[in-house]
C-alpha cells in the first residue's frame, strides 16, 4: 500500500509520457487521472492507519550510495507528518488532474501536460516520504525540475521560458544552501539518515566547528544553511522573486505546485527536521524574522497587483510566511495545520481564478473584468468560500489555523515572536482587503470587459467544477475537523514522534488573552469592509489614494524593486564577467601570452634569423670578424685573470 501510493503517479507519468502521444489524449488523461485517484484514496487510508492507529513504518527499497561511512538508501518513511503531507499532496493533485482534463482540453500537448503533473506528484511524494537528506534532496530537485517544465509548458512564450529558468535558477540558489547544509550534517554527524542524525543531535548541541575559517555553533550554522534551501523553495523574502513569475504556467500548475504542494516543501523540511532546529534557537529566531517579514511584505504587494493570478501568488507567499514564523516559534503542528488548510483554500482560489480565466478566454487582468457573478455563479460562490477561508473568517478552515499561529507567536513571549505577531496581524488585514478587492473587481460591480468578451463569458464545464467542490469542502471543514488532532488535545497522540517540541508553545497559545484570539477576525472584518468601501462604494478612491502616496505606491507596485536589484547585482554582472573573462582572460591573456604568444615569438625570431642569412659574402665575413674579436678578447681577459 505504501509503495503503491508513491509509485502509481510515476507509472502514470511514464505511460502518458512515452506512449500518450500515440494513443491519444483521452488515453493519456485516463492513465494519469486514475492512478492518481487511486493514490489519493490509498493516502486517506494511510492517514487513518498511521495518524490514528499509530501504525507508521519505513519501507526500505534498496541501497543507493554506500561509500566509506556514507550510506544512503532508498526508503519510504511513513509517520504522521508524512501521512498528512501525502494526504494533502495526493488529494489536491488528484483534484488538479481532474480539473486539467477540462482546463487543458484545447491544448495541443495534453499527454505531455498530464505526464508532467503526475511526474511532479511522484517527486513530491518522494520528498515527503524521504528517510534521509539525500532522498529528500532528490525529491526536492525533482519537483523543481517539474516546476521548471510546467512553468515553461507553453514554450513558445518568451516570458514563460524566462520565468521557468528564473524559477530553476533562484531555487538553485536555495539549493546551494541546502546542499551545503547536507554536507554540514554529514560532517557533524557522519550520517545522513534522519533517525541516526536526530538521535545524535542532543549530544552535539553545544559543539562548534570551523566553517569558512571561523568557529561557529555547529547546529545553528547547519540549520541556517538548510533554511536557505527552504527559503528558496518556499519563496521567502529575498528568494521569492521566482514565484510571481511562475504564474506564466497553466493555472492548474499554479494551483498544484505554486500554492498547495511544492512551495510548502520548505515548511515541511523544517518541520521534518524539528529535532535539529529545536536545538538551534538562533536559527529559529532567524526563521521567525524571515517568516514575519515575508508575511507582511508579500501582502503589501498583493494590494496593488492587477493580474488575478499574481494577487493570489503574493498571497501564497505571504501565507507561507505565516507558516514559517509558526515554525520559528516552535509551533510546528500549527504550521502543518495551516499548510493543510491553505492547500485546500488556495488551490480552490487558483482553480477558481483558472475557471474565470477560462471563461474570459485567457484574460487575466482584473481591470478588464468585473460583474462576472451572474454569469459564473458557481465559480463566484466558490471563490467567495475560498476567500472567506483565506481571510480567516470564523468556522472556515483558515480561521482555525491562522488563529493558532498568531496566538502561538504571541505566546512565545519573545521579541521576535511579537514582531511576527504584529506583522501577521497587519498581513491579516491586508489579506482580507486584497481578497475582496479581487472578488469585487472580478465578480461584482459593472463589467469593464469589452462587449464581445463579456458576451462569451460562460460557466466552466462540470469536469472543472467538481474538483472545486471537493476543495471547497476542504476549505470549509478541514479546519474544524482537524483542529482537535493537529493542535488540540489529541495533538500528542496524533503526531507521535514525528515532530519534536522541546517546549509546547501550542499549549501556551491556548491560554493567550482573549483579544489576541479575536484580533485577526476583527482585522478580517475591517479589511473586507475597506475593500467594499474602496471598490464598490467609492471606486474612484483607490486611484486617488495611489496618486496621493505615489512614491510608496510605486515602490510597492514595483514589488519593492527586487527584480531590478537582482538584475543589476547578479545577472548583468555574470554575463558581463563571463564575456570579459572569455575575451580578455582566455583570449588575450592566456592565449596571448601562452600558445599564440609563443607561436608569434617563434615566428618573429625565425624571421630575424632568416633575415641574417642574406647571402652576401661580406656580411658573413663581418660576422666572423666580430666573432673572432669577441673570442680573442674573452680569451685574453680570461687569461690575464
Amino acid at each position, binding site marked *: 500500500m505504501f509503495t503503491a501510493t508513491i509509485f502509481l503517479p510515476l507509472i502514470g507519468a511514464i505511460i502518458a509520457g512515452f506512449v500518450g*502521444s500515440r494513443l491519444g489524449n483521452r488515453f493519456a488523461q485516463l492513465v494519469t487521472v486514475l492512478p492518481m485517484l487511486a493514490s489519493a484514496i490509498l493516502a486517506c487510508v494511510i492517514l487513518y492507519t498511521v495518524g490514528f492507529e499509530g501504525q507508521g513504518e519505513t519501507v526500505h527499497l534498496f541501497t*543507493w550510495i554506500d*561509500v566509506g561511512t556514507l550510506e544512503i538508501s532508498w526508503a519510504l518513511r511513513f509517520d504522521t507528518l508524512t501521512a498528512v503531507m501525502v494526504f494533502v499532496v495526493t488529494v489536491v493533485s488528484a483534484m488538479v488532474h481532474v480539473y486539467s482534463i477540462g482546463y487543458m482540453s484545447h491544448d495541443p500537448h495534453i499527454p505531455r501536460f498530464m505526464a508532467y503533473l503526475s511526474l511532479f506528484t511522484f517527486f513530491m511524494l518522494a520528498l515527503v516520504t524521504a528517510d534521509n537528506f539525500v532522498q529528500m534532496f532528490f525529491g526536492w530537485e525533482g519537483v523543481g525540475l517539474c516546476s521548471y517544465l510546467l512553468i515553461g509548458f507553453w514554450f513558445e512564450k518568451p516570458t514563460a*521560458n524566462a520565468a521557468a529558468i528564473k524559477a530553476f535558477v533562484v531555487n538553485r540558489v536555495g539549493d*546551494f544552501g541546502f546542499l551545503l547544509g547536507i*554536507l554540514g550534517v554529514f560532517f557533524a554527524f557522519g550520517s545522513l539518515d534522519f533517525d541516526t542524525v536526530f538521535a545524535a543531535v542532543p549530544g552535539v548541541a553545544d559543539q562548534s566547528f570551523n566553517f569558512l575559517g571561523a568557529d561557529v555553533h555547529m547546529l545553528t550554522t547547519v540549520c541556517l544553511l538548510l533554511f536557505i534551501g527552504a527559503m528558496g523553495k518556499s519563496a521567502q523574502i529575498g528568494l521569492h522573486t521566482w514565484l510571481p513569475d511562475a504564474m506564466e504556467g497553466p493555472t492548474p500548475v499554479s494551483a498544484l505546485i505554486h500554492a498547495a504542494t511544492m512551495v510548502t516543501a520548505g515548511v515541511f523540511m523544517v518541520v521534518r527536521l524539528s529535532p535539529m532546529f529545536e536545538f538551534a534557537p538562533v536559527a529559529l529566531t532567524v526563521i521567525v524574522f524571515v517568516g514575519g517579514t515575508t508575511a507582511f511584505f508579500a501582502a503589501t504587494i498583493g494590494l496593488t497587483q492587477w493580474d488575478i493570478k499574481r494577487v493570489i501568488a503574493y498571497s501564497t507567499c505571504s501565507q507561507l510566511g505565516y507558516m514559517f514564523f509558526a515554525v520559528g516559534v516552535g509551533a510546528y503542528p500549527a504550521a502543518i495545520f495551516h499548510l493543510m488548510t491553505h492547500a485546500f483554500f488556495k488551490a480552490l482560489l487558483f482553480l477558481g481564478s483558472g475557471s474565470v480565466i477560462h471563461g474570459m478566454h485567457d484574460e487575466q487582468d482584473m481591470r478588464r473584468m468585473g460583474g462576472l457573478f451572474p454569469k459564473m455563479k458557481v465559480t463566484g460562490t466558490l471563490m467567495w468560500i475560498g476567500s472567506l477561508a483565506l481571510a480567516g473568517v470564523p468556522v472556515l478552515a483558515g480561521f482555525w489555523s491562522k488563529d493558532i499561529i498568531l496566538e502561538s507567536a504571541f505566546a512565545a513571549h519573545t521579541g521576535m515572536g511579537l514582531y511576527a505577531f504584529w506583522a501577521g496581524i497587519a498581513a491579516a488585514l491586508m489579506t482580507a482587503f486584497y481578497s475582496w478587492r479581487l472578488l469585487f473587481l472580478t465578480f461584482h460591480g459593472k463589467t469593464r470587459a469589452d462587449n464581445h468578451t463579456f458576451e462569451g463569458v460562460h460557466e466552466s464545464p462540470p469536469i472543472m467544477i467538481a474538483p472545486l467542490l471537493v476543495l471547497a469542502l476542504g476549505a470549509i471543514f478541514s479546519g474544524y475537523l482537524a483542529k482537535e488532532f493537529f493542535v488540540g488535545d489529541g495533538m500528542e497522540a496524533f503526531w507521535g514522534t514525528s515532530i519534536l517540541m522541546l517546549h509546547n508553545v501550542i499549549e501556551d497559545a491556548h491560554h493567550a488573552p482573549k483579544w489576541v484570539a479575536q484580533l485577526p477576525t476583527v482585522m478580517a472584518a475591517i479589511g473586507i469592509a475597506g475593500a467594499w468601501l474602496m471598490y464598490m462604494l467609492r471606486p474612484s478612491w483607490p486611484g486617488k489614494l495611489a496618486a496621493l502616496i505615489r512614491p510608496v505606491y510605486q515602490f510597492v507596485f514595483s514589488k519593492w524593486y527586487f527584480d531590478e536589484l537582482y538584475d543589476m547585482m547578479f545577472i548583468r554582472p555574470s554575463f558581463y564577467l*563571463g564575456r570579459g573573462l572569455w575575451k580578455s582572460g582566455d583570449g588575450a591573456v592566456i592565449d596571448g601570452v601562452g600558445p599564440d604568444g609563443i607561436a608569434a615569438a617563434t615566428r618573429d625570431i625565425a624571421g630575424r634569423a632568416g633575415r641574417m642569412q642574406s647571402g652576401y659574402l661580406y656580411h658573413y665575413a663581418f660576422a666572423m670578424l666580430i666573432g673572432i674579436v669577441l673570442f680573442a678578447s674573452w680569451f685574453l681577459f680570461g687569461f690575464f685573470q
Partner: protein
Amino acid sequence: MESFPVLSLTTFLPLVGVLFILIVRGDEETVARNARGAALWTSIGTFFVSIFLWINFDTSTADFQFVEKHEWIPAFNISYHLGVDGISMFFVLLSTALTPLCVLASWKAIKTRVREYMIAFLILETMMIGTFAALDFLLFYIFFEGVLIPMFIIIGVWGGERRVYSAFKFFLFTLAGSVLLLAAILVLHFQAGTTDIPTLLAFQVPAEMQLWIWLAFFASFAVKLPMWPVHTWLPDAHVEAPTAGSVILAGVLLKMGGYGFLRFSLPMLPLASDQFTPLIYTLSVIAIIYTSLVALAQEDMKKLIAYSSVAHMGFVTIGIFTATQQGIQGGIFQMLSHGVISAALFLCVGVVYDRIHSREISRYGGLVERMPKYALVFMVFMLGSVGLPGTSGFIGEFMVLIGAFQDNTWVALLATTGIILGAAYMLYLYRRVIFGKLEKADLKNILDLEPREIAIFTPLLVLVLWMGLWPQPFLDVMDVSVSNLLQNYQTALNAADAITVVGR
C-alpha cells in the same frame, strides 16, 4: 595468472579491424561501406570482450587483475605489463563503450576519406585502452602520447574551418606537458631502477625529489584534464573536431589527466601531493567559477559544452585531492559520468549540426516542435550535466562535495556555487535551442531523430539514469582499490610526520 590474455585482446582487437580495413579493395563507395562496417563490428566486439572484465572482476581485492607480464627491454627492467584495478577498470569500459557509438555517429557525417578516418579511430581506441591498462610507466607513456597522433589527424583532417590551428594548439599544448612527464619518468627510473608501476607504487621517492617529479607530472596531467589556466586548447579543439572526435576527446581523453593524478601523483608522491593540495584546490575552484561564467557568454554550442567540461573536471581534481574515500570515489564517478554526459551532449550538438551545419546557438530555436524525441534526449543529458539527483551527474558532484567539506569548507562553498552557474548556462542554452518559436525557415523541415541516432542515445540514456539511481555496482568496484590507495597515502604522510618530529 597467466590464463587467457583478455586485456591484450581488448587492447589490440581494434587493430585487427584496422588490418581488415587496409586490405579492402574496390571503388570508393565500397571501401567506405566496408570500412564503416568493419569499424563498427570490431569496436562492438571489443566492447563485449571488455564486458568480460567487469563480469569477472573481483571487487574484494585492491590488487591488479587480469595481469599479463612479458619481458620487453630486460636491460632496463622495462616490461610489457598490463592489468586493471578498481580505479582503471571502468575507464577501459568507457573507452570501449564510446568507440562504437562514435563510429555510428560518424556514419553519415564523414563522407571523405572514410577508410582513413575509421583506421584513425580504431588506432585511437587501442591507444586509449592501453593507457588505462598499462602497468609499466614507459608503456603507459607510449599509449598516453600515442593518443595524440590519431586525435591530431582526426581534428586536422576532418575538422572545421580553423582545424589546423586547433589541431596544432591541441598537439603542442599536450606535448609540452608530456615532455616533462617523460623527464620525470626517467628520473624515477634512475631512482627505482624500473618503470614497473606496481613496483613504483611501493617505492618511496625521496621527499625532496617528490616535489619536482610532482610538478612534472602536474604539467602533463593538468594540460590533459584540462585545468585552468591551461584549458584554452580544449574549446578550440572541440569546436573544430568532428562530432565523434569531440565525443572521444571529452569522453575519454580528458579522463587521462585525472587518471594520471590518481594512478601516479597521489600514490607515488604522497608528500608532494599533500603539499600541493592548496594549489589544486585554488585552480579547481577558479576553473569551476571562471569557466562557468565564460560558458554563460558563449554563442557556440560546442564551445559552451567544452567550457562546461572544464568546470566539471574542476570537481574531479577537487575530489581526488581531498584524499577522502567519498572525494576520490566521487572524482572517479564524476569522470565516468562526465564521460557519458558530455559525450552525449556533443552527440546532441552533432545531431543538429548534421542537419543544419551550424553550431551557432542563435541559428536555432523552437526545435521541440519538430523534434520532440530530440528535445527529450537533450533534456535528460542537460539535466545530467546540471547534476540533478537521479542522474549520474549528481552522485559524482555530491560525493566530491562531501569529501571537500570534510577537508576545507571554503572549497566546498565555492565549488557548490558551480551548481547555480551550471544550471544557469545549461538551461539558457536549452531554452535558446529547444524552446521558443520555430521561426527560421530551414528549421521548419528539420527531422527528428532517426533510428540510428536513437540507437546511439539509448545506451547513454540508460547509463545516465542507472548511474544516478543505482550507482552501487560502479562504486563497489572502486571501493577496495580506493581505500587501499588512501591507506597507503595516509601511512606515507604519517611516516613523514614522524620523521620530521624525530629530526627536530
